Every structure is written in C-alpha cells, then in structure tokens.
C-alpha cells in the first residue's frame, strides 16, 4: 500500500530536491562547459553580503509577522468564539483577507500605500497633501508595510486554527472555574491559554514555515527595494536563478532555504508535535 505513495513522493519531491542539489554543485560560468565545483557555491553564499542581508530581512520578517499574527489571530478567535447575533457572518467576513490571492492583496496594499492617491494617506492626513508619506520609499516603512500586508492577510488563518482549539475546550471547565470564583482574566490565563497551547503551537509552526517562504508580497509590493531593504532570501534566489540565469548559485540558495526549513520543521515536529499529540486525548 505504501508503494504508490512512496513513488509519488520520490518522483515529485525527492528527485527534484536531489536534482536541485546536484545542480548547485556545478559552476555557472564560463560558457557551455559547466564544471563541478563541489560546495564552492555554498562557500560563496557564506561570504555573500547580499545574501546575509536577505537572510536578516527574512528573519526579521518571520519573527515580526508570526508574532503579530499569533496575537491578532488569538484576538480574532476569542471574538468570533463568543455567541452573538450575526456571528456566522462575522466569521465568514474574517476569512476574506485569507481567501484573497496574495498577489491581489499585495497589489491592493501597493495602491493603498501609494504616496499620492493611496487611501492610507487620505485617511491619516486628509487634505494636508503635503504631509503624505511615500510609505514604500523609506527602507523601514517599506519593510513595515510588507509585514503589515502579511499580518492583515494571514491573521485570520491563525485565527481559524486558534478557534478550532477554543472549540474543543469543554464548557464545563469554565463552569468549574467560575464556581471557584475565577475572574474573566484568570479564566483566560489559567484555563483557556494552557488548553489552547497545542493550537497555538500548530499555528506557530504553519506560520513560521510559510513566512520563511515569503516571495509574492515582496515581488509585487517592492521588488526588494529600496536598497534591498525588503529583499527576502527567496526573492534573492529568484533573481539569481531566473533573471541572472545563475542556475548553480540560485539552486544553492534554494537548497539552503530548503535545508533550513527542513531542520526547523523537524525541530517543530519533535518538540511541538509531541506536545500536540500528548494533549490530543484530553
């Protein structure tokens, strides 16, 4: 029974990954004869200031966006978990940002943040047109804008995961806590949060891995600029591979990201996964 599945994995995951790895061991130049350079490209990557910067930008993006998304997601989940009139509509509405294709959302944010006709400037400054800020022109606000767009778009996804976690917490535990005289905050702090941990960790896992692969937001909103301030590692890899045509170095970047994510996933599955599984029977 395992054979078809294994074949599928081998053909569509293992082979391309191994092939990319092999490609990364060959030189890009000069000319027609590619020569075997072993781990030369990997050594080059270690000393490439552009790659270092891209890695730092990516890490910053991952840390900032995942943290904010977990906070926002939990907030959203707590709200739509409550019973109120029109909850079904609100729940559906919350998911809209997540349902919009990232490219469309990125394009939308680019327009919203435009220095002349962008809605954000109009809301913040109204008629004081001289105060309008070119958000994507400054390295720091441009980076912030990319994070903001990601948080806007995926907070509802974390919200969904956390909501699933909230729904499996039995109502009786809250009743018991109330009987013991726990305040709303105490109920949240000592009942909800511990029982929510598996869901939160799952959301964290999904979001970190996803954030590491961020590409489309940057591609549409900033093209990595200004001054490479928003150039994430995947975009750098893309430019190297597809625009510059440096197959060896480009795949080296891809393979490195792949390995980094594989290690991260393994770590998560080992530590977080076991916790999630332990909690499951409860």
């Amino acid at each position, binding site marked *: 029974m395992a054979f078809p599945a294994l074949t599928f994995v081998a053909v569509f995951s293992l082979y391309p990954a191994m*092939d990319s790895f092999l490609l990364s061991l060959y030189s890009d130049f000069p000319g027609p004869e590619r020569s075997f350079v072993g781990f030369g490209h990997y050594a080059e990557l270690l000393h490439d200031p*552009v790659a270092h910067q891209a890695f730092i930008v990516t890490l910053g993006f991952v840390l900032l966006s995942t943290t904010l998304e977990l906070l926002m997601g939990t907030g959203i989940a707590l709200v739509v978990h409550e019973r109120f009139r029109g909850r079904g509509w609100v729940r559906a509405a919350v998911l809209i940002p997540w349902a919009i294709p990232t490219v469309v959302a990125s394009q939308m944010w680019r327009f919203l943040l435009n220095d*002349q006709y962008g809605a954000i400037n109009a809301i913040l400054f109204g008629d004081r047109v001289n105060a309008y800020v*070119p958000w994507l022109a400054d390295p720091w606000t441009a980076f912030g804008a990319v994070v903001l767009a990601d948080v806007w778009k995926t907070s509802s996804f974390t919200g969904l995961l956390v909501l699933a976690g909230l729904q499996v917490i039995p109502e009786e535990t809250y009743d018991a806590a109330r009987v013991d005289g726990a305040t709303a905050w105490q109920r949240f702090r000592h009942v909800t949060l511990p029982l929510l941990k598996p869901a939160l960790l799952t959301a964290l896992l999904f979001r970190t891995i996803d954030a590491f692969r961020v590409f489309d937001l940057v591609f549409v909103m900033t093209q990595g*600029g200004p*001054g490479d301030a928003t150039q994430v590692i995947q975009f750098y890899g893309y430019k190297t591979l597809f625009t510059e045509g440096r197959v060896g170095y480009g795949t080296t970047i891809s393979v490195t990201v792949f390995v980094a994510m594989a290690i991260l996933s393994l770590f998560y599955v080992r530590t977080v996964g076991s916790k999630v599984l332990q909690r499951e029977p409860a």
Partner: protein
Amino acid sequence: MNGFHAVFSIASSSPLRRLSPWAVGLFAASLLSNVPFAHCRDFGTARGSSPTLVSSPVTLHFVTWKADHPRVWDEAIQRFEQVHPHIHIKREIAPHSSTAYHDLLTQKLRNRDGSLDLFFMDVIWPAEFATAGWALPLDDYFLPSEREKFLPATIASGMYRHHIYGVPSRIDGGMLYYRKALLEKYGFSPPSTWHELVHQAQAILEGERTTNPLLRGYSGQFKQYEGLVCDMLEFVGSHNGSFLTDDGRRSNLTAPESLQAVQFVREQIIQRLATPAALTYQESESLAVFLQGNAVFHRNWPYAWGLANDPQYSKIVGKVGVTTLPRFSEGKSTAALGGWLYGISAYSRHPAEAWTFIEFMASPEMQKHFAVHASLAPSRLALYADPEVLHANPQYKDLLSVFQTAQPRPRTPVYPIVSHVLQRYFSRVLAFPETDIREEAQEADRKINRFLALLRDL
C-alpha cells in the same frame, strides 16, 4: 500595474517548488544534448530544415509584451496576415516590465521550447541571448545593405561578436519633458545643465507653492529596477563618467566623475526636487505625476509625448515641451539607449516565415504606422524626414541627435548580473542618505569585476 499578469502566473507557489519541474527539465535536456547551457547552434542547419515559402499554412508563435497601444499592434498584425494569408501569428502576451518579460522568455528558451518562433529583445539582451545560443543569427537575412538604413546605435545593439541577432523595431532614448507654459511664466528657457535645472525648478516651486502645493521639481524613475540603471547612466554619463571602463573589462564606478554625479542625484534630485517618493516610481508612476501637472521636469522615453498631449490622460495638453537631457557643465548630454529588437528563436521550426514577419513589421510603412499612432520613434533614419511622421511627432526633428548619440548600457552576456549590482548600489545610496557612496561603489566594483573576469576566458 505592469507585471501584474506575470506575477499572477508565477508567484502563486513558492520559488523552491517552482524550480523543481524546471530543474528536472533542464537536467533532462542537458543529459540528452550533452551541451548543457550555451548551446551554439549551427543556424545553417536550422534554416535548411525549415519549409520553403509555399502556401501551406504556418502558425508563428510570437511572445510579446503587453503593449502601451494594443490596438495599434492588433492592426499591424492584421495587416500582416492580410498580406501573408498563409502565415498566422499567435501572440502570447507576456508582462510589460522588461525584467519580468526577460524571465519568462529565457525560461522558455532554456527549455528549448520549439513552439516559440518570435520574440522581442530589449537592447540589453543580445549579448546574453547570443552567448546562450537562444537567438538565431540573422546575418543571412538582415543584410548589411539593409542595416545601413537604420540608426547605427540600434544596429550596434543587435550585434554581438560580429553577428547580428535582432532587427530594431524602434529606438528609445531618455529625454527631458518640461512644462513649457510654466517655464515661460518665469522667463526660463529649457535648462541645458543640471544645475540650471535645479535652479529653475526651485524658483518655480517657490513661486507656485500656494497655487499647487503638490508640485515637485523633477519626476523620474528611481525604483530599484532596470529603469534606475537608465536614469543613473544619464547622470553619470553627462558628468563624463561611465559604468565600465572604455574597454568594457572593468567596472568604473569609483571614478570621481561617477561618484560626484551620484552624490548630485542623492542631494539635489532626490532630496530636494523629486522627493523620496520617486524611489517607488517606474515609468508609469513618474509619468502620472507629470501628467497630473505635479512636476516641472520629467525624464522619460519618447512614448510619453503622445500621452502628455492626450486629453484623456493629461491635464497639461499643449503645455509640454521636450528637449535633450541636461548635462553637467563639464560633460555632455547623455541619453540612455533603449528599444526593442525583433528576434527569432534558435529553436524555431519556421525561421523563414518568422523572417517574413520581421521584415514586414520593420518595414518603413509599418514603422511609420507605429510612429504616427503610438509615437514609437522609428529605428529607420529616413522616417525622420517623413512629413506624416513629423506631423504627428514634431519633436523628432530636434531629438534625432539624441537618438544618434544615445548611450548603450554595458554590452555583456552577464548584463542581468551587472544590472542587479548597479540597481542595488544606486538604490542603496539613494534610499539610505547616510551611506558612504565611495564604499558602496567599491563593493559594486568588486562584484562586477568578478563576473566580468569570469567571462574573459570565454
């Protein structure tokens, strides 16, 4: 908005995953052919195997970009199909942005897509396409007697190592648009030096502050993309600087002329006249500022003339002038050379028919069609004396000299790499005002030199 479609098709999954099938295909191809990358094809064979011009119907696959004037192109292709009913042109519309178009096209060519016959090459690509063996050499089709009728700069951009790979569809050169009425109001004539431009812009900004608080002195393309390289080439070139040394073998960014020009852009153009918002502008955004009447001076390609005088897009119809770009007092005016060349894929199965198409589209009649209806500057010299062309584009008369002296960007098979290094360098020094220009230039120099050195053994 440019590149929107491209983004849609390529950004939907992670690059890592997208790489895989591509990598597989590439690897498989390399196993089969034994000549993995730059596959120099004997084009004689390619031609011999192609069907001769009989009237069996042929469909040519033409990968083109989303045109600024789609209807003008539709009409041109219709005309071709009327004259050559046995050839059908099937267009695949790629992104408008040069880089996104390049990425899509080169991916097809790396995969040796036999269904692809015709494409456009930006003037910066022939060296790369020739070295990789993607573009069919056109020496036997595009004869020297015919080449003589084109502007020399456009022919030079299609040549690499004594072969010709592209037929110029038009020429582009950077030029200075200005608000004629505004300049007259303040008693200025169009500036001939950059310092004059700064002086005039500031006087006008001062005077117009109450009537139009949104008015800026200058609007150009300073986003981190290919256009930034063109704009900066013009500043550096007009200060007697250059990106590469004269022999094209070394990077020349740390020369004092270059450094001073870059510093001028940072301090005078970005921080005083254009505002840092220009760091997010490509052609269309910067043109929009000008067409809304919010810029005194504007740098753009020839196509902007038509739009600036079209009441549907422009608030400044009839109040616009265009002239050569300014220079520094010790340099000469420099326009970046742009433009698009028709090319035939080395893997095309119908090169003869493809040539029929190119010959038709690059003919004087069709170039006239594009010049009159889309204000695309012809690559054929004779059309600059054509009354109809001049009637639609009176500015060509004065600007012919710009086209004749337009400055090419570095011609090298590794141009995409050189361009990325230049984009990073310029964008960093403009966006981070505290950076040391010399240090950044040194870093860029080192990287460019490394790649140029790799090519020497080629």
